Each structure stands twice: as C-alpha cells, then as structure tokens.
C-alpha cells in the first residue's frame, strides 16, 4: 500500500513537472512553430507555386522526401534549444531543482524531458501536417501510410537527439555551451569520424546525420529493396558510400542512443552538486 502511495506521489510530481514545463516553454514553442511554418513556406510554396523556379518532383513521394530532408536543420536546432538547458540551467540559475531539497529530483527531470519532447514532437507534427497538405494539393493522392512510419522514426530520432543533448546538459555549465557542442557534433563531429571509418567500408550507424536519412527514405514503397550504398573505384581502391540505414539497424541504434545517453545523463545529474 505504501509502495502504491509512493508511486502515485512520483507520478503526480512527474505530471506537475510536465504541465509546468509546457507552460514555461510555450513562448519557445510558438516561436519555433512560426519559424517552421515560414521555412516551409519558403522551401515549398515560394519555390513551387509563387515563383515556380523549381520543378515539381515526378511523384508525391519524391516531394515528401525533399521536404523532409530540408527540415533536418530546423529539427536539430529545435531539439537543441529545447533540451540544452534542461539540467544545466537549473544549476546555473539555481531555480526549481535547488528550491526543492530532499525531493526525488529525477521526477522533475523526467517531467521536464517529457514536456520538452512533447513540444518538439508538436513542432514536427506541424511540419508533417503542412507537407501532407501541400502534397495533397499538388498531387491529389491519398497520404501514404509510410508517411506515418517516417514520422514514427522521426519521433525516435528526436528521442535519441534529446538524450544526447540531455547528457551534455548534465555536466556542461550553460545551455549555450551545450547548444554549440551539439551543433558542432552534428555538423562536423560525425563527419570527422567518418573520414576514419570510410576506408573500412563499415556502415556508419554511429552517425546521427546518417541515421536521419531513414526518415526520408522509408517513405518509398520500394524501401526494402533499395540499394543502401553504392561503390566506386578510385586509384584501385573501392570506396563504399552509404546512403541510408536499414529499418532494423536504425531502430536498434536510435533506441540505444536514446536509452544509453539518457541513463548517462541521469547518472551524472544525480552526482552533480550545487
């Protein structure tokens, strides 16, 4: 009975944290939603409708793919902005976590994590909704079920990215330093590692930019039979260029990313002192 009461108390704390965090991040959510809509407008409506300087792709699937790919940068920035201060800001500003001594702080962090995740998923859902709307407008075809599969992988991808960001936030001094590192990692970090891994022809499943490709490719009905890499020979050396991961590979790696980095972040957070 006591255990049940404790679980109820913990769930209550998590739920209150979620509600409070959603309220706090409301402004950020609105700003990023507007940015998403504006960028979508520039990438699609302006390009294909108003000025027509880009030719509409042959099929709706190709249009889905190109619009989802163009969403990548905003996705990284959005996740970075929402999750970078999740732990370090509390310590830097001595706010909520520090005002509540002897409380189960992991309830508060879990609540914050879930709240920020819901908000980022919300922004992503806006993007997907607009993509589906525009594609229907151009092609008048039903929405393919694979779009939902793509959204599912994107949700898992955001979870992985959020966990990495949370891990950095658990020991870095400020949100801005976390943001800089995560952007640097995505833009340059993995590319540097790729330089060393490429000659081995091993699939770069460690690379978050590479894993992102599954989100745009899984839309294709023929995804399971598509070539995931191509090879070319230069100076008698055969190079292999990987295009996208397999569905199973991406699922496993992204799940591992999400769990491992969240746990690492949590352990570091538990040890962190004010």
């Amino acid at each position: 009975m006591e255990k049940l009461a404790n679980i109820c108390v913990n769930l209550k704390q998590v739920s209150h944290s979620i509600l409070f965090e959603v309220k706090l991040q409301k402004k950020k959510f609105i700003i990023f939603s507007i940015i998403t809509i504006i960028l979508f407008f520039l990438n699609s409506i302006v390009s294909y409708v108003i000025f027509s300087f880009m030719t509409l792709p042959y099929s709706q699937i190709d249009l889905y793919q190109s619009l989802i790919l163009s969403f990548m940068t905003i996705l990284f920035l959005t996740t970075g902005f929402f999750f970078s201060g999740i732990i370090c800001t509390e310590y830097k500003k001595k706010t909520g976590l520090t005002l509540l001594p002897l409380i189960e702080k992991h309830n508060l962090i879990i609540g914050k994590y879930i709240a920020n995740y819901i908000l980022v998923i919300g922004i992503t859902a806006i993007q997907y909704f607009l993509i589906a709307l525009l594609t229907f407008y151009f092609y008048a075809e039903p929405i393919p079920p694979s779009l939902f599969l793509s959204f599912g992988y994107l949700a898992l991808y955001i979870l992985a990215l959020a966990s990495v960001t949370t891990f950095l936030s658990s020991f870095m001094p400020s949100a801005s330093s976390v943001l800089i590192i995560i952007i640097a990692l995505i833009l340059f970090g993995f590319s540097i590692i790729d330089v060393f891994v490429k000659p081995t022809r091993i699939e770069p499943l460690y690379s978050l930019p590479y894993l992102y490709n599954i989100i745009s490719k899984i839309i294709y009905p023929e995804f399971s039979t598509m070539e995931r890499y191509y090879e070319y020979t230069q100076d008698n050396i055969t190079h292999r260029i990987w295009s996208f991961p397999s569905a199973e590979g991406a699922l496993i790696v992204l799940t591992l990313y999400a769990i491992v980095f969240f746990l690492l972040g949590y352990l570091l957070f538990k040890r962190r002192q004010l």
Partner: protein
Amino acid sequence: MSETVIKLENLSKKYGNFMALDTVSFSVRKGEIIGLVGPNGAGKTTLLKLIARLIRPNSGSVFIKNNDCKLQNIQKNSKNLIEMGFLIDIPHFYNTTPYCLLRHIANIRNYPRNKIKLRIDHLLKTFDLYEWKYKKLKTFSKGMIQKLGFMVAIIHDPELFILDEPQTGLDTNARIKIREYLKSLQNEGKTILLSSHLLTELREVCDKIALINQGVLIGFDTIDNLERDFKTKELICEIGNPIPIERVNDLIIKLNRQLEPFLEAKVDHSNFEGLITYNRQKNFFTICYDGKQTSRSEILNILSTEFVSDLTISSFYEPKISQLESLYNQMIKENNKKLK
C-alpha cells in the same frame, strides 16, 4: 524536553584544498529558531546546503527527523523525512507568475489541492504581493524576488525551515513581517535554521546562535549564555560637554586604571585599546565591563565621584542592540587569534 529535529555529526566539506567546514556538530530541537552567523566565507551557506542535501559532505553525517519521529541519516536515505522548506541566498526563478510558481511548488510538495489557492492568496497578501499575482517575475525587483523566495520555502507549510539570509534586500516593513512570521511559525512548533548578517533581527527571533568562523563552529548557545561566557557587556556613558581632543587619551588611561576591576576579565588589560572608547561625534564613552550588576553600579559611582571634574554624565545605560554585535566581533577576533 522537545525532540531533536536536526543533528549534525562532525560534518566537513572541502572544495579542492579549501576547507569550507571542519567537523561541525550540533543539534536543533523542535520549535527552536537557530541563527547561523559568521563572516563572509565562514561556511554558513555550505552548512545549509549540506542539510538540504544540495551538496555532499566529505565526512560526517546529517540526521533529520523522519515521519516516524526517528533521526535518519539523509546521505543513506532521504525518503520519508519531514517536510522541509529551503530558501537559497539569491533566489532566481523561471519567467512565470508568482501564482503559477507557488502553485507548482505546492503541487510538487503534495500540499492539499483544495487549499492551494487560499494558501497562495494568504501569503501574497501577507507579504504585499497580491497585486503582482499574475505579473511576470522578470518585472520584479530584488526585494520582491526575495519575498517570493521566502514564500516558496513556506508554501507547503513544512515542519523544518532552512533559510539562507531571508531578509537580504528587504525594506524595513518586509523585514518586520518576516520576523513576525518566523515567530508565528515558532509558536506553531516549527523548527527554523536561518543564517543572517542582520544581528539585530537575529536577536529578536533566535533562541540560540551558532557562530561559524573559517569553517569552524566557535559558539553554539543562547545569546545570554554566550555573553556570560565572553563577558561582552557594554555600558554607554553619554556626557554633557565634549572632551578636548588633547585630553582624551589621558582620560581613557585614567578610566582604565580606575575601572580595571570591573572591566572584561578574559581580555589582557595591559592592552587598553577597545575596552573603553570615546566617540567624539556623538560624545559618549563605551565601556566593556564584566557584566555583573554590582560592577555596573560601581562604575557609575566611580564616574560620578572621581571623574566629576573631567566629565558630566548626562546618560548611563546598557544598550541591547550592540551586545550581539560586540559579542560577534569579540568571538571572531578571539578565534582568529587562536587560528594564527
């Protein structure tokens, strides 16, 4: 005898090579208000953070009463402890409204849902922030944030309060309100541990003082007992006519010689500096005596008879307010001498 709520055993904390706290031990009983005093960097905030479990000690233990009325080592198990409210020295908050923040804290702390709104309104009215209930915190002044920090610490009506300089940055009115609120909490049987540099405020509310200097607890007792031990009683002798500057030193030497049997016993009397001082601007003598009632009468008698040609006494009394300050200064000075 009331039960122990907090017990510190040989608590030590190091930051790198710097010893912030060195084997501090004391106990706090239910219903007591303990004042934590000491110079800047003495270790007061470190001690409070250790009790609030915001940092971990290098050695020693903190025991806090749990809901089964037993003392529990919070490093080993921090569940089932009595409710605690904590105020950090310079609180910061999210960019929300006081109502939103207080409601969130009350919810997190499991305060009865149907009483939250009433409780928030009551606190906001008590501390004159009711009109600011729905205003964003970024528009608040430092004093208003401090008041809100105090409210955040007490919103869930805990049994134990840990307050780090609760009256910093507050106007006189607000300080009085907080002082009265602390007294009302004490009447309800709450236990309070607070640190402050405002010795006058501590004198009004605290049952005991814990004096910390350079990480070491150098005194823990009631103010009266500490004063008795250190004999830092003062007398103020206001005089009618100012003493000419060229006569002051000779007069002080003569006063020390005549009043020596009644001056502070623990201090080396060959070093007269500080025991009897003359304030030229306000025209009074300060005499640090041994605290006995008989000594006080004798001093007045000597001043009235043997110094009648040197000074005319217009007022002679023992100031309450400066005693804690002089006690504080005296204890810190002596401790610093020992450490050297």
